[in-house]
């Protein structure tokens, strides 16, 4: 990732185990950026938009988003990020168990950058996350316009 600025990874995932496995496998791919983990939508949105260390006020970020959250739908969070505002260019990777065609289309329509279905088989899962980590290491993240 952009080496001149530290890009933080915001992971919104209600399942602690998944979050841990994702983090482990991203680390195994050699990604050392900060990973902020949130288990519900409200806290995550508050951090994204209002926290003083959050991406809206402080530097670029990349969002890993699960769609099945206890308090709101992941697509609502996606819509809020991609709406007009400081975060609209922030890359969002939807990483979820849902492989419903309609849901995938809807996410891309809302502006999601990558949609990945979590494989149930652990080897495939670990493989996919490691490859995601490699992918994250090469993508460019735009700066937040602080105007």
């Amino acid at each position, binding site marked *: 990732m952009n080496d001149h600025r530290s890009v933080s990874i915001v992971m919104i995932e209600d*399942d602690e*185990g*998944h979050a841990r496995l994702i983090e482990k496998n991203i680390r195994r791919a050699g990604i050392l950026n900060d990973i902020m983990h949130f288990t519900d939508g409200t806290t995550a949105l508050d951090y994204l938009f209002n926290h003083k260390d959050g991406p809206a006020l402080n530097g670029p970020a990349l969002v890993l988003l699960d769609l099945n959250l206890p308090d709101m739908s992941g697509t609502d969070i996606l819509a809020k990020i991609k709406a007009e505002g400081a975060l609209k260019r922030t890359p969002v990777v939807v990483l979820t168990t849902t492989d419903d065609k309609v849901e995938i289309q809807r996410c891309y329509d809302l502006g999601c950058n990558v949609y990945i279905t979590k494989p*149930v088989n652990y080897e495939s899962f670990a493989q996919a996350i490691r490859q995601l980590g490699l992918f994250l290491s090469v993508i460019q993240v735009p700066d937040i316009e602080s105007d």
Partner: protein
Amino acid sequence: MFETVLRRFGGTRHAIGRFLIVCMVVGFLALLAAGVAAVLTVVRTERHTEMVNHTYVVKLAIDRARTLVEQGETARRGYLLTGDKAYRDNYVIAARVTPREIDRINDLTADNPNQVRNIGNLRMLVSDLIEQRERTIADTDAGRRDAAIATFTAEKNARRMFRIREILSRMSAEESRLLTIRNGEQRAGINAFYVTLSVAALLLLVVATFSLATVLQYTRDLNASQERLRDFADSLEEQVAERTAELTRANEEVQRFAYIVSHDLRSPLVNVMGFTAELESATATIRDLIDRVDAAAPGVATEDDRLAAREDLPEAIGFIRTSTQKMDRLINAILKLSREGRRTIMPDRLDIAAMGRTIRASVQHLLDERGAEMIVEDPVPAIVNDRLAVEQILSNVIENAIKYLSPDRPGRIVLRGHVEGSRAIFDIEDNGRGIAPSDHTRIFDLFRRSGQQDQPGEGIGLAHVRALAYRLGGTIDVESELGTGSTFRITLPLTYVDPQSGQPANKENEKP
């Protein structure tokens, strides 16, 4: 009143029919009686009229006889007093006709002993009279008028004329008496006829009233029950429509439920599998450590440590893995079923015989392996339905048939079909190992299997087939005897009907 009669008859349709028939029979009997009475009366009246006429004829003859006797007497007296030839001629005519007239009366009244007796007397008197007259006439002809007048005077003393008149009067009176009797009889006959007619008419009226009332009542009841039936039919249709909508809703609900559950089940499974993998790699690390410790400082690690690292942990992890893998397969099966339920049906014209032959070709290697044959009968009805779904149903059932063939005999699988009403029925018959009656329903349940578990499978195929059949508006059931074979019967509509619109599929519209 009619109600009580009807109630006594039970009020059922049969009873009413019987009642009407009884009424009609009584009516006809009354009519018949009236007719017979009329005929009898007419015949009797005719006879009476004849008799009355006869009496008049007799009376007339008696009067004529009397007139002739009187006429003869007058003519004779005239000739006796005047000697005029004209009187004599008159007398001769009267004298000649009188016995004949008496004979006629005799003929007419031969059936009446009174009259016969009277006539006997009359004839005797008249013949005496005529004989005496002839004598006076002959005396007069001979110019012996005094002798003639003396004879005449003597005769007058004998009062013969008087007695003749009396007899004739008696005869006439007898006839009058008969006339009175006969008239009375005729009137009685006519009265009897009127009475019979009145009774018959009354009976007819009563019967007609009862019949009419019964028919009216029955018709009213019939109309009422027809109306009730129509209402019931209407509400039945509504009920069916409601029930179908409910079922569709429930089915959709189940599909959604299955989809959500299977997705939500997947999530923890990812964790279980993921951390099991982590455990496995950690176990490998610990095993290495134990190995190193044993090599560097034997005696530090206990036998329990070694057992835990080398056997207990790998064994536990192995069980967790196989279990989670199985659970993964099951969840995938549920997911597949729910996906099938959400797939859009694309109706198309399907040649089931051709489809059967294609499936046979695709399983030919399995058939050859087991030395079995499969027969696709032709013709098999063609239907309009979803190709993929029907193919899956047929191939699933056929694959099952091959899978569970009996090793004791050469396998034989037959696909045949026929049409019943608006539905096509396809039978897939095999001579395989068969299914116990207690399992006939169970085999269609998810994850349930029957018989010896010597074949791979999760118990998904038939549940899938049944879900598909329901989806296509059809059914599936099985007839089977353990050890003899099974027949799976698939019933599908000839043309797929969309449950939402209720419209039969028009394949021209469906196919681009």
